């Protein structure tokens, strides 16, 4: 820090008679700040208000010596229930090996990553899945239908809530459970009342009956996972 004076002129009218330069040095570099007499600052702000505002904003964080407490303000933040999710991978092949007509199973599991915040006391949340019919439709391939279809799945490893148990049968008309019982006041990350996992995850694996009645060909079905919370 040094007190060497500095003169600056703007538009040939303002002249700062005295100012102090503060230089803060560290291994990462140095930052210089200027503190000027109050009587000159008023005029400067009048003429150079925009510039002063910008400089003040830029300099404020690193020049703690120049800060003046003007007052206090209480910030109120209302956190509401919220959710977000990603599904990976975006596509999975159902394959079968070994014995003929053994079922098709997903080559890899589908992982649902989810973030959730539920309302304290009364809130809850869940993750569900619903399938769209295999396409192309009407060509003799597998048909999921509204109930009792050939496409089933299992869930494992939910890090928040309870993953579905046993084999679940997919439907094209109703959502079926993946994660249930996400409790009130739940939140993702941070530990304590919240989960330690960030994000929360659950794995799903799918099985398709290998019915000889299926015509040969390639078919696909889009799965839509939905997370909801109150």
């Amino acid at each position, binding site marked *: 820090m040094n007190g060497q004076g500095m003169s600056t002129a703007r538009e040939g009218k303002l002249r700062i008679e005295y100012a102090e330069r503060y230089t803060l040095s560290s291994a990462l570099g140095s930052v210089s700040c200027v503190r000027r007499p109050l009587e000159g600052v008023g005029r400067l702000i009048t003429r150079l208000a925009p510039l002063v505002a910008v400089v003040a904003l830029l300099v404020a964080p690193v020049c703690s010596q120049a800060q003046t407490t003007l007052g206090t303000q209480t910030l109120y933040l209302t956190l509401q229930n919220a959710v977000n999710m990603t599904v990976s991978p975006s596509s999975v*092949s159902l394959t079968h090996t070994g014995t003929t*007509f053994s079922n098709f199973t*997903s080559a890899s599991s589908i992982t649902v990553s989810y973030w959730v915040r539920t309302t304290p006391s009364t809130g809850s949340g869940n993750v569900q899945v619903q399938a769209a019919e295999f396409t192309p439709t009407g060509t003799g391939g597998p048909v999921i239908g509204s109930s009792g279809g050939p*496409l089933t799945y299992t869930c494992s490893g939910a890090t928040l809530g309870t993953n579905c148990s046993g084999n679940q049968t997919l439907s094209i008309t109703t959502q079926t459970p993946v994660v249930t019982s996400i409790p009130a006041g739940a939140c993702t990350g941070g530990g304590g009342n919240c989960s330690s996992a960030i994000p929360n995850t659950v794995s799903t694996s799918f099985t*398709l009956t290998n019915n000889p009645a299926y015509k040969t060909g390639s078919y696909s079905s889009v799965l839509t996972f939905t*997370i909801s919370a109150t």
Partner: protein
Amino acid sequence: MKKILLAAVALLLSASLAGAATVTATGTSTLSVTVSNEASITITTGTTTLGATGTVFNPYTGTTNFTYKIRTSQTGGSGSIQLEVTTDFSGTGGPSVGSPPNSGDALTYTCTTASGTACSTAQTASTTAQSSVATFGTDAHSVATGGDAGSVTWSLTNDPKYKTGSYSATATFTISAT
């Protein structure tokens, strides 16, 4: 001023109510599957006993049952069930598929299948070549969940020249699909 206060209260109230609403988010993944030609067969009669009934020197007969599943390609596909005697009757002086005591001696069979086209006439089993049980065309499918049923009814010449005794042979069934 009163209006402003009312508006503020309404705003706070609506914000409070909004907190109770259900929020949702979605993500998708696509499952894909390639269904190919495939075939399998299960012999449900593990051991078939050939027995002679009625008039003396009637042929020895018996039935072997099986189930099968088959799916042939939609374009240019086909399928078949065939059999071959892979182990001839054991012992000497008895019946033989590969080397019968007399030229008229033979192991023949007739066929039934729930789908496809079963052999229409009696076939003669061989130890050196497969013979037909059934054939399937393009885009053929077995129907039943557990597999379609089929059978082979055997007939073995009852040649007086055969020495008395017990003899056994092994027939191997093969199903294929393209």
